[in-house]
């Protein structure tokens, strides 16, 4: 059963920022799709006194693709991502993650900002976004700032967002033609299952040389993280099966998985190795 709380339904962004900035008592919590927050509230893991629903502000939802950038409104749902023709051409790894995300009803409700804000290391959308070098736009009454997603998470269930800030956008640079972004996850079943290992890879190649390599890992550390030492082994290099294996092995070193109900740390480490090598091989194969 949900605990008692006040529900606010502002119809402007300013209204939202005013409500979450209100210092009385515990902070008001923004509610987007509710697929994480409401579950936590029912289980009494979190019991906010006030909840601010974002659903009355249509401009918070939508996908904007300009010549250089892709920007997602915070309330863009996973289904929106899945059904977007634009993203199929400039962020296909995110579409792959959306396919593997929850069940149909959850995809219809869950939002991209919610998936970031709930701070789950097993997030499905964060690894591809992180591999795309996405940035998070945070707004409050005192202004706005932009934080690289890579620096957004500071620890298990911890991030840089202040309680008076709202995620108002997620954006990344459109990928050049000679690049590929990929995502794959392992779980106990094909859909509607929490990730055991999620790996996103983004690679750009020019003249037979890897110009950019991004490897983001989900569900294998307190936060989603980039395997930066593995990435740097690849950049500026011509990839070979041996180098790919070594980089994948390096990625496993950068993770710190745990044993839990879904899988053992050992299996997770193995999963990073297999998926990273597989995705790097695929990306390299497509670009050369």
């Amino acid at each position: 059963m949900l605990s008692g709380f006040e529900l606010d339904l502002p119809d402007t962004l300013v209204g939202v920022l005013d409500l979450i900035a209100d210092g009385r008592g515990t902070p008001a919590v923004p509610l987007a799709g509710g697929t994480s927050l409401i579950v936590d509230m029912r289980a009494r893991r979190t019991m906010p006194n006030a909840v601010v629903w974002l659903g009355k502000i249509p401009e918070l939802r939508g996908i904007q693709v300009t010549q250089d950038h892709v920007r997602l409104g915070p309330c863009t749902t996973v289904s929106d991502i899945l059904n977007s023709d634009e993203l199929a051409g400039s962020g296909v790894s995110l579409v792959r993650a959306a396919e593997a995300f929850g069940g149909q009803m959850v995809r219809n409700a869950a939002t991209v900002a919610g998936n970031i804000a709930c701070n789950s290391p097993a997030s499905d959308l964060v690894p591809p976004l992180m591999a795309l070098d996405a940035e998070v736009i945070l707004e409050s009454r005192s202004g706005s700032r932009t934080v690289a997603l890579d620096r957004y998470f500071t620890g298990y269930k911890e991030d840089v967002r202040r309680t008076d800030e709202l995620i108002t956008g997620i954006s990344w640079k459109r990928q050049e033609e000679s690049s590929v972004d990929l995502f794959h996850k392992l779980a106990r079943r094909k859909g509607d299952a929490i990730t055991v290992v999620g790996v996103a890879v983004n690679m750009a190649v020019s003249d037979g040389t890897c110009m950019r390599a991004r490897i983001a890992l989900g569900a294998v550390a307190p936060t989603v993280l980039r395997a930066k030492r593995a990435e740097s082994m690849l950049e500026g290099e011509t990839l070979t099966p041996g180098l790919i294996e070594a980089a994948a092995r390096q990625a496993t070193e950068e993770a710190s998985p745990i044993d839990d109900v879904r899988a053992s740390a050992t299996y997770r480490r193995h999963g990073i190795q297999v998926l990273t090598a597989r995705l790097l091989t695929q990306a390299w194969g497509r670009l050369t």
Partner: protein
Amino acid sequence: MRELRSIGKSAWRKDGIAKVTGAEQYASDVLLPRMWHARVVHSPYAHARIISIDTTAAEAMGAVCLTYDDVPKVRYNERIVSTPPHLYRDRQVLADKARHVGEAVAAVAAPTERAAELAARAIEIEYEVLETIVDPEAAMRPDAEPIHSSVLLGGTELPIDNNVAVNRTIEVGDIESGFARADHIFEREFHTSRIYHAQMETKSVVCRPEADGGITVWPTTQSIHNVRQLLGEIFSIPLHKVNVKRVAIGGTFGSSIQMNSVIPICTALALKARRPVRLVSTREEDIYDHTRYETRIRLKLGVTDDGKLVAGQMEALADIGAHNIQAFALLSVLAGWWVSLYELPAMRFHGTAVYTNKAPSCAMQGFGNPQATFATETLMDEIAEKLELDAIEFKLENYVGLGGTFWGQGPSVQSIVQSDGVPELLRVGSDKIGWQNRPDPGSQTGRYRRGIGMARGFHTSGAGAPKPGEVIDYSGALVKINEDGTVDVVHAMMDHGGGTLDAIAKIVAEELGVPVNCVGISPADTLTTVYDVVTHATRGVYAGGGAALKAARKAKAILLDYAARVLGIEVDALVIEPDEDLCQGVIHCPSVPERSITVGALAKLCQTNSWGSIAAVESLRQVNAPPAYVSYFIEVSVDTETGHIETRRVVVGADCGTVVNPAMAVGQLEGGLSKGTGYALVEDAQWDPETGQLASRGYWVDAKIPSISESPRLENIETYFADTYEPTGPYGAKGVGEAATNPCAAAYANALHNALGIRFRQLPITPELVLAKLRAQAGETLLGGQTAGPASAGSRGT
């Protein structure tokens, strides 16, 4: 035999429209004037003495509270299918001591669900926490904390030593000389998992106290009559004042064979509050209420050089959780299923059922049969491989078939097999899957490896037998012909969703010679129906349908007597045939075509002439429990990099005698595959050894069952039925439901062996387990320097 009109043709479910439109009424849909809502307070501890319960604050909020002090001090067993001498009674309406996480220790009723929840939280309980026992082996250690000091067996106090609820040894023939005759002896250990039924509807109930001191109850149950008898006994209410109503049930898989724990709690609250009370379990509460029996099975089989089984021994350890619901019966059936798979001239079974501080185990689709069949069929496949015999020929040489003695539900439930489609099932199935072209085990290399596996099995149709035994089994039905020629069937049986009541309607329609659309299934309650034991043991069509057929025959005889009088034709010369256009049965004599009358016209004449009603009530004890045979052929593909298993193709065949409703029977097979796949590959209920909590903590998010994505595409699931006729069944029918799932896990294990050359003797076969075995096979370890074992049940999330 004349042509069948209703039986053998696919028909829509009579309740289909109500179910898809939401009009159907389940227990939680029963809303009554003045009704309050209940919530139960559950123990957060797996094993704890209750020191005190303070309800002051909850009562100050206006709630009616119920504690151990308020409930009748009657020890009961919630499943009264076993005969009284075999009933182990160890529980009361509310617990005096918490024996598992989620055990009900107090309850409240209040005007709204919210008020009830708040009141439930306001109850303060002081516990003395005791040692938590999660492992059944540890439970039997002499120094282990006793979970029950004694229980009632029949009416006698039975001390419980070393947490052993019951032992059972069954021997036939001389086991020593049996194994001495064997040229080869194989002995292996198997471990099956403790999974949740995952039925759609959570256990719910509404109870209304009546002005005359009686009660009316709308429960989630598989047996309205057993609920009635237990409530009458616990609350000392004469049975004519206990009315239990049948409402639709949202699936069970066996989870409501017993009277669910919420039913007497709700009844006690309603009696104390003197108003109707509704109690609906949440999913998390339901997951902590019941599970499948976890077993460790040591199986030994002796076989001659030419492939003849000569002796067998099974030792089984069953983890029954915190209460003994049917441990004695479980040990009986484990032995029964095992010895009914293959002829064993000498056999010995020893079973031990042990209490642990986990949710109580109860029957789940197959009741011990998936466990026994997994062990037996996996070992039979291995023996065939080692002796270089074709597994199908080896099984056909040894199986219990036509003329064999079939134990069905245990040593007291023996009958002779009179219909047997096994040879047809295996030959057709092996042709369809391409058995002869399957790869040699372990011969493949590369990332993806393909394998084909086969397993066979069965379930009984009911628990009937020639003599009274340890289990009650009979049904009753009232068939009455209405004044317009339509028919009411009044039958206490539950339909879990498999179409049992539709099958009964077809059987009655067939017998009376009326269109099936003219036959209605009446609402049922315990005041107006005769006894039916319970819908379980795949007995619905065979036993429940058998009783309806018996009543229909008697009603038909009355009908034809009147018809003979009206038409002036000898009764033996009359037939009734359905006329779909008239929507009537027509009574006539083929050689005197000018004389005929519709059933409706005759029934109306009976009424207007005041001749009386055309109706009959009958009770039927089936004296057989014929096997419904099933065979599975499964093709899998394994990704050896991740350990993931893809089900590529499944061929499932069933011998259920006459197929009453083909579309529904196919649905049973497909459902059995889905549940079997979950058992084999996906479902994994881990319990924290420290806290006795489920690692999933009762949430679906980590208690996964297969979704549609795990199923092969429909065009890759092929079902077929053997052409058989069961002489003791209604129109030749047997059961199908539980048989449909029993061999599934073994077929997967055998397919994986065919693909990888590795035997799996533990369920579920997860990607992690596959990978660990592959690495062990290659002499490697996974990254991190250790071989992956089952994941530990840590409480940290990721």
